[in-house]
């Protein structure tokens, strides 16, 4: 199960970062690891745009098939964070989850 979550997806199933409807930043993530890295790099407007549309939780739940992380992301929406505070919170959430998944003690 864990290896499935950590797999690299084909290009057409990657997450594509937009700043608004139709405005693609050129950044994409094809795995959870890459998604974590892109959180640090993309325009914060893109994070705000996708978080409050529910795009992150949808992609994580339906494409990466990681329901647990999807729920954690969903909870972030309710806090109504913006800007770098949102970026940090998102980074911490995804990093903590990623570490749990990649820990030698995790159940695979």
């Amino acid at each position, binding site marked *: 199960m864990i290896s499935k979550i950590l797999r690299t997806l084909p*290009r*057409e199933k*990657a997450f*594509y970062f*937009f700043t608004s*409807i*139709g*405005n*693609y*930043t*050129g950044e*994409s993530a094809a795995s959870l690891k890459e998604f974590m890295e892109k959180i640090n790099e993309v325009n914060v407007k893109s994070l705000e745009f996708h978080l409050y549309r529910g795009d992150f939780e949808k992609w994580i739940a339906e494409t990466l098939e990681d329901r647990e992380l999807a729920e954690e992301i969903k909870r972030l929406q309710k806090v109504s964070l913006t800007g770098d505070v949102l970026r940090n919170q998102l980074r911490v959430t995804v990093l903590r989850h990623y570490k749990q998944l990649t820990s030698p003690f995790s159940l695979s």
Partner: protein
Amino acid sequence: MTRKQRNFYIFPTKNNKFKHKSFDTGREAEITVKLKNNTVVLDVTDYKILEALQEDAKQTYTAIGKLLGIAHSTVYDRIRRMEQNGIIKKYAALIDAEKAGAKKITAMMTIYTDPKESEKVAEKLCKAPEILEVYTSLSEELQIIAKVIAENQESLHSFIANVVAPLPGVLRVRTSILTKKFKETQFLITNNPKELKFIRGAYNKIGENKK
């Protein structure tokens, strides 16, 4: 078939060429359609026929002939030739999508691409039914400009996220949703001031010869 036009007779001849003959002097000269560097050169009458067709493509050859003072058979011959040469590409109805009940949104996408992949990106875009028009643009960065139609903003976003962004070579996309239409027309032959000048110039020349 010949027809008096001002002080000349117009002779349709072979190989897409027409000749005119002076009514007064009997002198002949080629004035009209010919191929120059594989480009069809049109004369005043051709432009005027095109103008008439762009105004109303359903009007008869006779009506156009009356309007321009030439025989309907001349109109027929010239239209047929311009169809064969691909100058007249097709006859189509201009539909007001809103009045026809289509509730859709239209947007213009600027797609920045890797120059090595831009042709392929443009070709793939052409295959998508949501895309109405595709152009490449000259600017500092290689861009593709595409007109896209979608049911709503959400379906527009899905299309760009799922179809356009994943295309290899797409670097980023900027999209503008079109809100209010002020004008929509096809290229009109008389809209080109350069061509208009040419038409007037040619007409004046004929007039001058009469003196």
